[in-house]
């Protein structure tokens, strides 16, 4: 393909990009800042819930039970209280998020073989943080029940055990899940935002008028504009993977070269989305607004934070129109599962299709005239 005006355009964009120190600093600092934020601050598995205890029986049996709760790691006993009112108050004020109540007849019922109850109160205003506490409380009782029942039945082995093997992320660590996804989210955010402004900035500054009275073709203009940012995308991805590997211990299991090649397709597709936005708007402000309207569904619907399987069908379809949805599968597939082309070729083909289609649409929508 002969594109004699591509290189001057590329070179000009590159100089302008290099000279805009602030934007360049933001583009390189953003991935690392985001990664530290998401990696350290966002933990969906809530541990050590502050807990108050109201122990009416005050016996070795009740203390044993409370220790069992604490040993799960989900409860952190912060105080013993002497009545229901103070327990309620502690939870209402937010000092504690859970309360354990052991009734006075707990050891007696246990000894008689009756059902001994223990009450666990959880602040479920935030479902995410209460979930693991609720699960752990049920678990404590079940383990105790098994012990007691098997003793009574004089069995040394329990009848059935489901052996769950959490593959690809055995520790169920959230960084392993978040960091690969973050590569895609950061690329989407910066690539779409940068190029959404690309054409419209020249229009606003008056430089587009001078540029389109020259023989440069629409394709040369568009490709020359986005090409330098492919490099930015690759640098961003490398930064996130590097910090992910060495700060958060996220494994890089699969073929990293393949990952970079797919990332190239994804970056071009994202730049293409930005270019299309750029042809739709008249001012930089509109471009930013439209770009954010595009980025938000990417974060919510692509499967970055919330599982796509849980979404209503319509929103699953919307997710299918976003390149990030496919790129996330590739990222997690290569980084965590270590799978290759044979498992991911469908996603890769869709990304290539997106890249080509979006560039073509952007070029066709752009006209070398002022109206």
């Amino acid at each position, binding site marked *: 393909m002969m594109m*004699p*005006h591509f*290189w*001057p*355009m590329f*070179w*000009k964009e590159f*100089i*302008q990009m290099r*000279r*805009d120190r602030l934007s360049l600093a933001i583009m390189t600092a953003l991935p690392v800042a985001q990664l530290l934020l998401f990696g350290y601050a966002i933990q969906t598995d809530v541990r050590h819930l502050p807990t108050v205890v109201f122990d009416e029986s005050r016996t070795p049996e009740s203390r044993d039970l409370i220790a069992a709760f604490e040993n799960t790691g989900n409860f952190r006993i912060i105080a013993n209280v002497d009545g229901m009112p103070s327990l309620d108050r502690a939870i209402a004020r937010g000092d504690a998020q859970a309360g354990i109540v052991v009734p006075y007849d707990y050891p007696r019922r246990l000894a008689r073989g009756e059902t001994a109850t223990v009450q666990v109160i959880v602040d479920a205003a935030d479902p995410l943080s209460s979930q693991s506490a609720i699960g752990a409380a049920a678990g404590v009782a079940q383990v105790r029940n098994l012990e007691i029942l098997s003793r009574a039945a004089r069995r040394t082995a329990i009848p059935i055990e489901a052996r769950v093997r959490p593959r690809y992320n055995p520790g169920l660590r959230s960084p392993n899940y978040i960091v690969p996804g973050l590569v895609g989210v950061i690329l989407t955010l910066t690539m779409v935002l940068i190029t959404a402004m690309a054409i419209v900035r020249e229009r606003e*500054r*008056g*430089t587009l*008028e*001078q*540029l*389109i*009275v*020259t*023989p*440069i073709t629409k394709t040369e203009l568009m490709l020359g504009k986005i090409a330098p940012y492919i490099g930015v995308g690759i640098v961003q991805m490398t930064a996130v993977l590097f910090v992910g590997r060495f700060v958060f211990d996220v494994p890089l299991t699969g073929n990293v070269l393949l990952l970079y090649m797919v990332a190239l397709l994804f970056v071009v597709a994202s730049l293409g989305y930005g270019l299309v936005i750029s042809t739709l708007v008249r001012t930089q402000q509109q471009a930013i607004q439209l770009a954010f309207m595009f980025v938000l569904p990417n974060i919510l619907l692509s499967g970055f934070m919330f599982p796509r399987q849980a979404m209503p069908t319509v929103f699953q379809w919307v997710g299918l129109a976003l390149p990030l949805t496919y790129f996330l599968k590739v990222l997690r597939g290569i980084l965590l599962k270590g799978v290759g082309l044979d498992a991911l070729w469908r996603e890769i083909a869709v990304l290539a299709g997106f890249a080509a289609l979006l560039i073509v649409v952007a070029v066709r929508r752009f006209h*070398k*005239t*002022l*109206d």
Partner: protein
Amino acid sequence: MSAAPAPLSPLLKPPAIETHDLSRRFGSLVAVADLTLRIERGEVFGLLGPNGSGKTTTIRMLCGLLEPSGGWATVDGINVASAPEQVKMRIGYMSQRFGLYEDLTVDENLTFYAGIYGLSGAKRTGRLDTVVDFLGLEGRLGQLVGQLSGGWKQRVALACALLHQPPVLFLDEPTAGVDPAARRNFWGAIHELAQRGTTVLVTTHYMDEAQRCGRIAMMSGGRLIALGTPSEVAAQVGGGGKTLEDAFIILQERNE
């Protein structure tokens, strides 16, 4: 809408610019109405008129930046509506608003436009040297364009528009906001180009500049209302003994 004339034989060079009933509407607004002009090679032709009289719209149609709604126009013998990309190699254009990259240096702007106009190798070096020398830009090459004064910016813009040696040059208010000394310099350059055969179509608000044109056309409300040498136009609009400035003011008052 009448058709553009068939190409002439190679011996007869077409006029630099020719328009016939050229019109442009924006919705219900008629910006340019039935403009018919013929500008010969080597002319310095001035387009005068109050704001909104259709000068800029006319230039933009001739450059291929706006499509005509009616009539036709040729530049260097090429129809601007059917072959706008061919027109672009034959014209130099300075927009009303400064159109170069302020975050690039003078040299980088020149090199960029040389590349965009397809110049390379020795040809490029030669052309860059020529325009830099012609407009006296030697000492400014390393400066960011955004830091230049209005007069120097216009020189750099003219330099970029001349790199590919276009036979026709369109200048839309090239000296707006430029000090008198720099304006005189700029017009010196325009006349030098015309003497070497470049056709220049220029719009202006300054009467002293209009006086320096070979011929002028006065526009009002999108229509051509007077055409000829500056003194002929002054007489046509203002009557005997009036200056071009009187004519212009009469015209503006008639318009309000």
